[in-house]
């Protein structure tokens, strides 16, 4: 029993241990900024990419930039391209001619950026793991399958001269300029160093950083990459022109550690994603949040759950009550009335009357519909991501289970740590009746959030089989028209119509809310934030040694 006593003494001791904690805001400014990330890149080769590409973005966005950039309101402005002309050919192809900004040099300080660098990088990127990202280029699929010089020449990608790049797309793609800003396979590569090398040598050039290589165009270049130690060290790119006037950060360290929170307390880390929703109930003083262009939704296995049951479930879920009950984990939730968040250019505002056409919570009608369904399934399985998500997904699943129980629908929750593997069998058959998933925007255009529901997209709903494929064809036609729409009102209407097919006619998905991402950072660290695409923005990062007095 002495042991138990000892154990309780230890418990008391642990209570006391909290007294030793340093005051987080007393950490002094440094010119080396350390950032803890949930996972580090698996490749630094932006033209080759990787199956798990999301984790590469923080590093690659610090190192590189694209032809365009995005303004605070997500509108497109010039980046590496100073200007561009758009025209349409007689057969409906869209031609972009980019005029590169003069005076941009790679991080060796002398080699200028040339149009040829884009041609080299994009041709390679089309053959890489993320090649589908560049599928809109004219002749892309021929180049991907044939890989011959003729196919390369036929690709809609030409360096007219050193400063001019011509890109031909298969059709009108209104989202193309937005994508150029963030989607990293579109970044150029230093072709003068890489041309003529074997693929293995090129990959080593990127993935074994040494002597200032790989050359970059962004604010930072890599000095060391410890894959085992999960630590990436970068330094300021001396040739980067847009440096802040004062307080430029000389060194940047990206690291991955489960102990990020404790390292933050002990001043070892200056920026930290606050990904423990369970701790939002007692938020730290320096907690900040970013509104993501991202949707959390309930998906149906439409083969197993019939339309009436889907509609009844969509009406039975009371989003307001669901998220209200989880206010400790999801403070101030942005309830989803449609799939597109209202902050997305081309989405409807929350007050728009057209939104009434989409299913809303209505318990009475849900009950009536259920009576028509006939014998209810004994149990509905619901797949949800367990630990490792920055959203309280299991709690949300439990909330849905509780909302459906009074209707006689029994839901069994299954948690997973590998959603995309577990959601279906090896032959593609869906394993569960329902699932919860977050889909995030990659660029500021409605197309990015609706793309997954096209045929061949990872929507996990089997809705391409409904009505012999007529619904998904209608949906895709609306998306294509939306991408080509010239004026904003028409674009908004087309994307709303597409959502109506998905959410009201077929009820393949029920959008629940638009999540926020929480993070902590030192008050002296300015310009570092999470952007709506869940990426970090480094370019305006600076250290302000005399921050305004804390409240």
């Amino acid at each position, binding site marked *: 029993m002495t*042991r138990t006593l000892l*154990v309780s003494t230890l418990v008391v001791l*642990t209570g006391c*241990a909290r007294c030793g904690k340093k005051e987080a805001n007393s950490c002094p400014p440094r010119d080396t900024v350390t950032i803890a990330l949930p996972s580090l890149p698996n490749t630094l080769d932006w033209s080759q990419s990787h199956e798990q590409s999301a984790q590469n973005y923080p590093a690659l966005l610090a190192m590189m930039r694209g032809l365009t950039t995005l303004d605070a309101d997500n509108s497109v402005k010039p980046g590496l391209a100073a200007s561009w002309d758009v025209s349409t050919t007689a057969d409906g192809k869209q031609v972009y001619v980019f005029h590169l900004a003069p005076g941009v040099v790679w991080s060796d300080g002398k080699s200028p950026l040339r149009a040829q660098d884009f041609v080299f990088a994009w041709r390679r990127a089309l053959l890489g793991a993320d090649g589908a990202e560049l599928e809109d280029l004219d002749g892309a699929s021929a180049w991907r399958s044939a890989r011959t010089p003729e196919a390369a020449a036929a690709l809609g990608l030409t360096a007219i001269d050193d400063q001019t790049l011509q890109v031909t797309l298969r059709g009108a793609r209104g989202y193309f300029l937005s994508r150029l800003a963030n989607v990293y396979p579109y970044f150029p590569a230093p072709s003068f160093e890489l041309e003529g090398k074997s693929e293995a040598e090129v990959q080593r050039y990127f993935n074994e950083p040494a002597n200032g290589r790989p050359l970059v165009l962004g604010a930072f270049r890599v000095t060391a990459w410890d894959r085992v130690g999960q630590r990436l060290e970068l330094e300021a790119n001396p040739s980067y022109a847009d440096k802040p006037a004062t307080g430029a950060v000389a060194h940047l360290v990206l690291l991955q550690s489960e*102990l990020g929170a404790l390292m933050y307390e002990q001043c070892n880390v200056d920026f930290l994603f606050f990904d423990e929703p369970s701790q939002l109930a007692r938020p730290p003083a320096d907690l900040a949040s970013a509104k993501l262009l991202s949707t959390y939704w309930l998906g149906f296995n439409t083969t197993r759950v019939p339309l009436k049951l889907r509609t009844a479930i969509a009406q039975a879920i009371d989003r307001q009550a669901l998220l209200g009950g989880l206010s400790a984990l999801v403070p101030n939730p942005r309830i989803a009335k449609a799939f597109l968040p209202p902050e997305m250019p081309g989405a409807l505002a929350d007050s728009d009357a057209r939104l009434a056409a989409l299913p809303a919570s209505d318990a009475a009608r849900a009950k009536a519909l259920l009576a028509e369904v006939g014998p209810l399934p004994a149990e509905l399985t619901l797949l949800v991501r367990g630990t490792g998500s920055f959203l309280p997904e299991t709690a949300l699943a439990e909330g849905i289970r509780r909302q459906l129980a009074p209707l006689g629908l029994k839901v069994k929750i299954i948690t997973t740590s590998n959603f995309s593997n577990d959601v279906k069998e090896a032959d593609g058959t869906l394993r569960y009746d329902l699932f919860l998933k977050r889909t995030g925007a990659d660029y500021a255009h409605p197309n990015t959030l609706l793309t997954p529901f096209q045929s061949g997209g990872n929507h996990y709903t089997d809705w391409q089989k409904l009505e012999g494929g007529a619904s998904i064809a209608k949906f895709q036609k609306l998306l294509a028209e939306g991408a080509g729409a010239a004026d904003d009102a028409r674009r908004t209407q087309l994307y709303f119509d597409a959502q109506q097919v998905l959410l009201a006619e077929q009820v393949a998905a029920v959008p629940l809310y638009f999540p926020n991402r929480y993070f902590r950072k030192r008050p002296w660290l300015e310009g570092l934030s999470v952007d709506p695409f869940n990426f970090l923005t480094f370019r305006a990062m600076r250290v302000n040694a005399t921050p305004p007095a804390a409240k």
Partner: protein
Amino acid sequence: MPISAVLVYLLVVNLPFRQDSDRKIATSENDAIALRAQVLGSGGVQDAFVPWKRLFSGESVGLAGQPFTAKDLGRAASLSLGLGLIALLLALAWALLLAVARVQLAASRVGFLLEVIPGLVFGSPLFLLAVVAALLAIAFGVSFTGSHLLAAAVMALGPGTFLGVVWSDALRAEAARPYFLAALARGCSRRQALLKHALPNALPALLDAAAPVASSLLLGSFVAENFFQLKGFGLVYLEAARRVDAGVVVVATTLFAAVLILVSLAVELVRLLVDPKARDAAKETA
């Protein structure tokens, strides 16, 4: 050792393979399948050493997440080895302290406490002891993140206590023997007799404990590296298994099995050198 390599390979490689990405548009799985075939071969016995050949030629064996090469794995292994050696030294020191204390102080009031320590160590999951160590470190103002020494101490706790108990039992047995009593009768002090006579004679008992100590150190390295986030081989292995990265798991599991076999071989060798009884037995059979 090659047998364990083949067995591990056959077990891991022939599991169902899934590599689905969470992209918006499904891409063909051909790339992943081709990479897997490169790293792991066909899955038949004849290909059991394909991952090793790949490592020796400087290529990576990682299939999901991180592309680990021989250099990467070697760096992780050297960190773990260093930690393990520090932990072994700490464990031996702690064991000696505990053993002598248990023998010398058995009758005193503190003796009871010394009996409680093994119970406490064997009675709590190791990760909770790591939590206590970390919190105490914070309370005393020491940064525990990335603290190699603290991790080594946590690793040493289990094997050290185990060794201490084995050792003190052996010492007690020696202390009851005639030669020990004779030494005392000749005016040797108890402490002298213990350190000079009983301790060397109790050494072979430690050899019997070597195998459990090795596996306990291995366990400790998993828990301590995971808890203190030291990116050693144990953590690389755990993360690879969590990601279902068959390439790294094949290589690492085989390495662990090899280390355990080597330790038991080494123990037998040392036993032949140190223990006269074993030497005689070996001569007899020869």
